[in-house]
Each structure stands twice: as structure tokens, then as C-alpha cells.
């Protein structure tokens, strides 16, 4: 019919069409970027998880340094991915893409804080984490990896990313699960100092989360239950160590001499 052809006269060059073409470009660009960030986030998650597994392999002094070094290499690789995220977000409002990258960043917080705890027996701060997320072009591996080729006039550029307080909190909440695993493993390996130390540390984190309570976002409150359970597991482990350590088998004193030294050793560990 005639009317249909009329519609074609909405020429594709009208002002409206021109602006909608620009909208198309703008939306597609935004979605493409979002998608690239989702993929980077998945990579960050996976590699962070593997770093955590690696760190759980620490059982004794000989392989400790080796594993710590290896974990550092892995985390460096993760940070290279985060650098790519930071580059994608240059000049952007990071909160616009936050949902895409948040899972990855949380997992990174978990991994890096786990490594930090193993090294220093303390909690890494958000500031400390963010300090490691400032990147400059000068790093050697850059020259090959940068997608844009004219890196010449950009050499002074730096990129950085800040994990949000909430991402930090969520990462730390998950860290407690790993610490609980570390605790149980320690008991299994006959290491009785670590559990008591861990229970102190976990209690501090738990008290911290209690202090925050429900003033944070829902995702944080949601983790409280798991956190409480992890703490209970650790407290139970310490309880068991204490109870069995308190037992002097009065009714059966065979071979006391040879085991005495060993027992003294243990008693120290408890005090």
C-alpha cells in the first residue's frame, strides 16, 4: 500500500535518525566494554582462586618460601589483568561498570589478604591493597601487551583502580572461610600453635563484622552467618586441643620418660 512507502520517507538522514545512530554507537560501545570487563573479571576470579589453593599447600618451612614466591608471581599476573580493567576504566565512572568487575575484585581481595596473613599474621588494609593497584606503563611486559600501538606519547600514563570498601569487606568475609580451612589443616598436621592464633584473629574479624552489623549493604550481612560458623569451627578445634592437652593419663603411665619431652613441647604450645 501507499502508506507503507510513506514510512520509508523517514529518511535515514533526518536529525532524529542521525542522533539515534549515535545512540546505537554509544550503547554498543558501552555494552562491549561491559562484556570485556566481565571476561576480565572471570579471569581474575579463576586465577585468584588458584592462588588460594596454592597457598593452602604451605605446610612447612622448606616449601614456604617457594610457595610464597610462586603465589606472588600468580598475583602479579592477576594484577596485570586488573591493570587491563583499569585501562578499560580510564576516564570512566568505575561505578558504572562495577557489577561487571566486583566478583573478580572480591576474589582478588580474598587471595591477596590470605597471602598477606600467611606472611605477616595480620589483616591487610584496603589502602595497602589499593597501593598495589597503581600501574604505570614503564613496566617491561607492557610494550608487547598494550593493544594500542602508539604507546609513545602515553608513556607517562598511570592507571589505577580502588577496590570499594564493600568489595574489600566481602573479600575479607570470604577470607575467613579460608582461614578456617587453614586452621583445621593445621590441627591435622600436628601444628597446634596456628589454631589458637587463628581463633584470636578470626574473633577480631568477627567482632569487626558484628560492629558493622546491618549498617552495610545486604550482601555483607548475608555473609555473617557463614562467618559465624567458620569461627565456631575454629573455636571448637581450639577447644578440642585444649581438652586433650589437659589430659594426663594417670591410670596409664607406661613409657612416660620417652614421651615426656614431646608433651612438654605441646604444653608450651598451648600457653
Amino acid at each position, binding site marked *: 500500500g501507499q502508506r507503507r512507502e510513506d*514510512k520509508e520517507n*523517514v529518511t535515514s538522514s*533526518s536529525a*532524529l*535518525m542521525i*542522533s*539515534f*545512530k549515535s*545512540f*546505537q554507537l*554509544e*550503547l*554498543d560501545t558501552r*555494552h562491549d566494554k561491559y562484556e570485556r570487563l566481565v571476561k576480565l573479571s572471570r579471569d581474575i576470579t579463576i586465577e585468584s582462586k588458584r592462588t588460594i589453593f596454592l597457598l593452602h599447600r604451605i605446610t612447612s618451612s622448606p616449601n614456604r618460601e617457594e610457595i610464597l614466591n610462586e603465589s606472588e608471581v600468580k598475583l602479579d599476573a592477576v594484577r596485570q589483568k586488573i591493570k587491563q580493567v583499569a585501562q578499560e576504566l580510564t*576516564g570512566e*565512572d568505575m*561505578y*558504572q561498570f*562495577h557489577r561487571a568487575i566486583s566478583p573478580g575484585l572480591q576474589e582478588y581481595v580474598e587471595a591477596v589478604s590470605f597471602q598477606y596473613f600467611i606472611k605477616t599474621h*595480620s*589483616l591487610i*588494609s*584496603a589502602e595497602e591493597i589499593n597501593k598495589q593497584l597503581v600501574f604505570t606503563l614503564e613496566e617491561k611486559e607492557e610494550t608487547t601487551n598494550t593493544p594500542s600501538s602508539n604507546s609513545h606519547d602515553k608513556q607517562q600514563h598511570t592507571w589505577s583502580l580502588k577496590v570499594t*570498601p*564493600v568489595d*574489600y*569487606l566481602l573479600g575479607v568475609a570470604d577470607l575467613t572461610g579460608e582461614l578456617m580451612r587453614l586452621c583445621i589443616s593445621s590441627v591435622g598436621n600436628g601444628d597446634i600453635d596456628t589454631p589458637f592464633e587463628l581463633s584470636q*584473629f578470626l574473633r*577480631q*574479624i568477627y*567482632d*569487626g*563484622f558484628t*560492629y*558493622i552489623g546491618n*549498617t*552495610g549493604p545486604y550482601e555483607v550481612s548475608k555473609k555473617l552467618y557463614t562467618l559465624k560458623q567458620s569461627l565456631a569451627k575454629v573455636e571448637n578445634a581450639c577447644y578440642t586441643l585444649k581438652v586433650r592437652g589437659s589430659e594426663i593419663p594417670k591410670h596409664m603411665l607406661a613409657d612416660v620418660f620417652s614421651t615426656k619431652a614431646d608433651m612438654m613441647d605441646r604444653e608450651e604450645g598451648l600457653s
Partner: protein
Amino acid sequence: MSVSEMFIALQGSLSVDQDVREEIRKVVQTLEQTAREILTLLQGVHQGAGFQDIPKKCQKAREHFGSVKTQLASLKTKFPADQYYRFHEHWRFVLQRLVFLAAFVVYLETETLVTREAVAEILGIEADREKGFHLDIEDYLSGILTFASELSRLAVNSVTAGDYSRPLRISTFINELDSGFRLLNLKNDSLRKRYDGLKYDVKKIEEVVYDLSIRGLNKETSSAGGEK
């Protein structure tokens, strides 16, 4: 820094955040109030007598947009400029509504589609993210879709009011708008759902035009009202 100190600091930043949100919510409430007033004003257009004094209604609406400007100016002082999307959810609904209202006013005045830049100016904000508190493109588009739905109502009611030429003009207009939207690749989100509604608006207007044309009313000069 001890663990408890860290958590005190974190709690501090969380409660700052909450305070910011509380402040934002308050301003947004006044914005919603103003938007409702503009809406009531413009709803008059659909009713019998309303077609006569469209220009007056538009002028009055323009005055209300003055208050909107002030309120939005206040809103942007409530949070750091580079954290727009952190708090976006709070104002996106009212902003979409304001886009709709601005688009409606501009259409009633000039029968053209308000551009993103023009809306931004009416609201006293930026069209461009880099420049500050801006109008997000999806919010702009969402507001325009609400406006399109209002147009189909306008087409219906202008017939009731005896204005037979307006539906045809609306038809041409919404067809162009539809062509524009077809260019977009939308995700499966609320904008997509609202865009699906546009098809029904186009359909409704087409039906009005059909009703007029089988009765030969499309060729009459509009007998009653209409501001043109």
C-alpha cells in the same frame, strides 16, 4: 592499624555512604513532588477543554522546570562528582519521568522530539558525562518511551476533542521515533521491555488514523480545538 581500628574506619565510610544516600533521598522526594505537579498540569491536555489552552499549560510547566533545575542543582552537591553511577539508582526513576515531561512539553510546543542536549538544558544538567551531573542515555531513552505512550493517548483524546488532524501528525512523528529506536541493540533489561511497549503505541495510533481515514475524516480541516 589494628583490625578493630580498620573496621571502625570501614564502618565510618559505610555510614558516610548512608548519610549521603539519605540526603539524596530527600532531594529526590522533592523532585518527585514537583514532577507529580507538572504531570497533573499536563494531564489536563487530555480532557475536553484542555486542548484549547495547551500553550498556557506548557508555559506553566516551564515555570515548574525552574524549580526542577534548582532541585537538581542541589542534588549534585550531595555527592562527589565522579561517583554518579554509585548513587544512580536513587534518581534514575525521577529523571526518566522528568525527561518524559520535558519531551511532552516540547512536543506540545513544537511537535518535535526533544534532543538529549535539550532535555539536559531544560533540567539544568549536562548531556555529557565528562562534564558533570548528566543525563544517562538509557534514562533519556526510557523517558522518551514513556512520552511515546502518552502520545498514543493524546491521539485518542484529540479525536474525542474533535481535532482530526493531530493524530496524523502524531502518526508521522511516532513512526520516525520508532525507526530511531529500531536502530538500537538493547539488552534484556527494563529499557527493552519498555521499548516493546512502543510497538503497541504505534499500533494504537495507526488504528486511530485508520478509523479517521475510513470515515474520510483525515482530510477534514480540524473542526474543533487544537492549538495550531
